[in-house]
């Protein structure tokens, strides 16, 4: 008898072990993400490209969480937060949260991360913006931090959510020597996924962080591993997609997406984002060569010359809509009705004739991405008789040209980092200090600063309304359309796109049946 019992027990043990590894084998779901941009560092402090934002959603947790559907601010690492006064924020840190390296999160880590992100020696990429509002931060209780601001800055929660990844104390200053690249290759974050390997220019492997704190606001799907693959040109990525090596990809040009729809096993999902494309018209002219300036009539003529419907239908695709104000409709303070310029070539030609812009003068239109869109716009401008030349260059060269005042007009696009607030676009483009400011008008800059120096929503909306309507009346900008976020997803994956265009990959779930039961 006992032999039989022993046999029974041993066979039971064996079966459950088998079940376990079976489960293990099946459960290990890997999602391969295809990126067109080469990520040079894992550290969110030193990367601005959108792809690094997507990666940091997986690996880093901020103090605040932005709900992808409602875009409201909710506590994440912070258990509770409240504004003791307009310029002081008290945050209580959640207990028992572990770093990927196993260390426990403390208030000192939060203070260190805030100080480092805003410090000059850190040279992080968002230090200028943080320095405008961050005064100081210090620990006031074992798990409580007080953050003091220079003035009642309305977007403090957004910055804490996106721009300040939390690092262990002193991680950048090993033994007194400042090493900004400490976290570049092996990241010690707090997010739901841990980095296992990083081959620059090739791929990044991520794995689910087992003891991620339970009561996190982030709704987690059932993906175990992520493999980020980086491609230098779209041809090689498409080959990989067609070959079945990529399950999720985004920011694909429109014409390729239509082809991809024909591929079996892949679906094309459209989502909104905060990005808009526009044509900025410089009024300062080129100080060095004293070229003539586009006057009001010429700018209005250009507004009438561009056929926005065609751009939306063919170049930007479904989910894109034409806009009149120089901001994204979802952003707080973006006025619904501003001066509308309809597409009318005859009116544009008449206006141009009346304006002081002489025909022979060559207008350099600069662009640094989406060459096809730029070519269509230039074609439209040529149609009304403007002598236009397209200068398609790299961003670095465009910046240099802008600083030297050579840029009269450039085609750009702005995603505001997913901020649902008009301040992000206004501050970057019309604030006197900003390198992107082609208008150099003191009045406008003062009104922009005033609009973002307090957090009363009604007043800010009124202020932004007359800023944007003023820009529309003076036709400083030619706002074109919103840019939808376009995702290419394998059929067995379910992914709901967020409203602000930042992809939350951790929400993805594998819908293949055998895994769920």
């Amino acid at each position, binding site marked *: 008898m006992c032999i039989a019992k022993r046999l029974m027990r041993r066979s039971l043990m064996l079966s459950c072990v088998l079940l376990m590894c079976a489960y293990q084998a099946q459960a290990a779901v890997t999602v391969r993400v295809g990126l067109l941009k080469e990520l040079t560092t894992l550290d969110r402090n030193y990367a601005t490209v959108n792809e690094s934002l997507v990666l940091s959603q997986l690996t880093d947790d901020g103090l605040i969480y932005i709900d992808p559907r409602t875009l409201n601010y909710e506590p994440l690492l912070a258990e509770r937060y409240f504004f003791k006064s307009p310029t002081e924020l008290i945050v209580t840190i959640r207990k028992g949260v572990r770093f990927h390296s196993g260390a426990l999160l403390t208030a000192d880590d939060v203070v260190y991360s805030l100080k480092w992100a805003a410090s000059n020696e850190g040279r992080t990429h968002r230090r200028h*913006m943080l320095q405008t509002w961050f005064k100081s931060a210090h620990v006031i209780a074992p798990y409580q931090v007080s953050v003091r601001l220079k003035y009642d800055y309305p977007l403090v929660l957004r910055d804490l959510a996106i721009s300040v990844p939390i690092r262990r104390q002193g991680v950048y200053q090993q033994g007194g020597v400042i090493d900004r690249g400490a976290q570049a290759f092996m990241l010690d974050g707090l997010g739901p996924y841990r980095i296992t390997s990083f081959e*620059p*220019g090739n*791929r990044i492997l991520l794995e689910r962080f087992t003891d991620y704190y339970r009561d996190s606001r982030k709704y987690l799907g059932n993906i175990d591993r992520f493999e980020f693959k980086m*491609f230098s040109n779209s*041809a090689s990525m498409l*080959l990989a997609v067609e070959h079945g090596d990529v399950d999720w990809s985004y920011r694909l040009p429109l014409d390729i997406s239509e082809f991809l729809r024909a591929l079996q096993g892949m679906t094309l999902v459209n989502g909104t984002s905060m990005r808009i494309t526009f044509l900025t018209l410089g009024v300062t002219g080129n100080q060095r060569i004293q070229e003539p300036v586009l006057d009001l009539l010429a700018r209005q003529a250009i507004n009438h010359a561009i056929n926005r419907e065609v751009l939306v239908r063919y170049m930007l695709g479904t989910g894109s809509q034409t806009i009149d104000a120089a901001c994204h409709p979802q952003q707080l303070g973006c006025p619904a009705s501003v001066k509308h310029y309809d597409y009318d070539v005859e009116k544009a030609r008449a206006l141009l004739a009346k304006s002081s812009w002489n025909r022979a003068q060559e207008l350099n239109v600069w662009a640094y991405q989406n060459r096809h869109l730029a070519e269509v716009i230039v074609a439209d401008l040529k149609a009304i008789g403007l002598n236009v030349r397209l200068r398609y260059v790299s961003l*670095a060269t465009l910046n240099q040209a802008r600083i030297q005042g050579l840029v009269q007009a450039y085609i750009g696009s*702005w995603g505001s980092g997913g901020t649902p607030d008009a301040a992000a676009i206004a501050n970057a483009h019309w604030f006197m200090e900003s*390198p992107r400011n082609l208008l150099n008008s003191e009045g406008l800059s003062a009104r922009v600063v005033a609009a973002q120096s307090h957090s009363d929503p009604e007043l800010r909306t009124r202020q932004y309304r007359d800023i944007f309507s003023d820009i529309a009346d003076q036709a400083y900008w030619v706002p074109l359309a919103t840019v939808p976020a376009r995702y290419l997803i394998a059929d067995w994956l379910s992914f709901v796109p967020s409203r602000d265009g930042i992809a939350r990959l951790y929400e993805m779930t594998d819908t293949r049946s055998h895994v769920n039961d």
Partner: protein
Amino acid sequence: MIKRLALFAAQRCVLAVLVVLLVSFMTYMVVDVTTDANEAIAGEWVVISHGVETSALSGYREWLFHAIQGSFGESLLWNRSVMSVIEQHLATTLWLTSAALVGALLFSTMLVMTSYLLSNALFSRVLIMVCMVFHALPAFTLGLILIWIFSYKLDWLPASGTLDWHSFILPVLALAFALTPRLVLVMDVTLKQVLSAGFVLQLRSCGVHGWRLWVDHIVVNLLPALLSVVSIQAVHLLTGAVVTESVFSMNGLGRLTLESVVSGDVNMIVALAVLFAVAAVSVDLVVNLLIFAISPHAETRGNLLP
């Protein structure tokens, strides 16, 4: 003999250093004029920091001071020392270029020898015509066509990445094809010249022939011209790698150069330019020493350095 060789090598080293200095100076000037260093990388919400406007010349002097001590400054894009980034990407490019060079050499030697052994005029004329035409076919067209045939239609080879050695086959083929025409042309001319030389007829009339004649006499005279063309091709190879790596999206030095030029990462561009210059000059130095050792009187000095 050794003393003359040493003198020759010393003279060439001095010139090599001079060349590298001049190249680094020119690159620094061009880069400083055309790309804005500090703001380029910062990207979206940056407010301009009015640092003191340093003149290009003082910038170069300061850069040189650091470079001599071996630190090429910090890359803005990678936030790490330039050298460590280069080391990471070095292996791929070394593998790609050396394999392509060896492949091109073997392939062109084989072609030239078959045209010599077949010794029929039509084959050699067709070979010359084909080489002259392929001399102008750009490497990236070749690369794209290879991708379309081998990795899309036939699905034999991966089209990108450097995960395993399979993905090296197509890029090496593309680069080798870009080099072969020039090598074949030069080898063919040199071979015909050496074979029509007087001493070959003399030796043949005295009964020396076949393998013995080639090994002892003909190869020794072929090498100087061949080596000097290889030194020039090696330089073209480095620039060719930029195009091939961007077509096959391999993370080598070429793609790193392109990325840093696009993103305006000043320190990285200048460091890479200096690295390419040092590589080109050292390849030529080695080639010249070899030529000098083989036949001290050879007029076909490596025409890179005087």
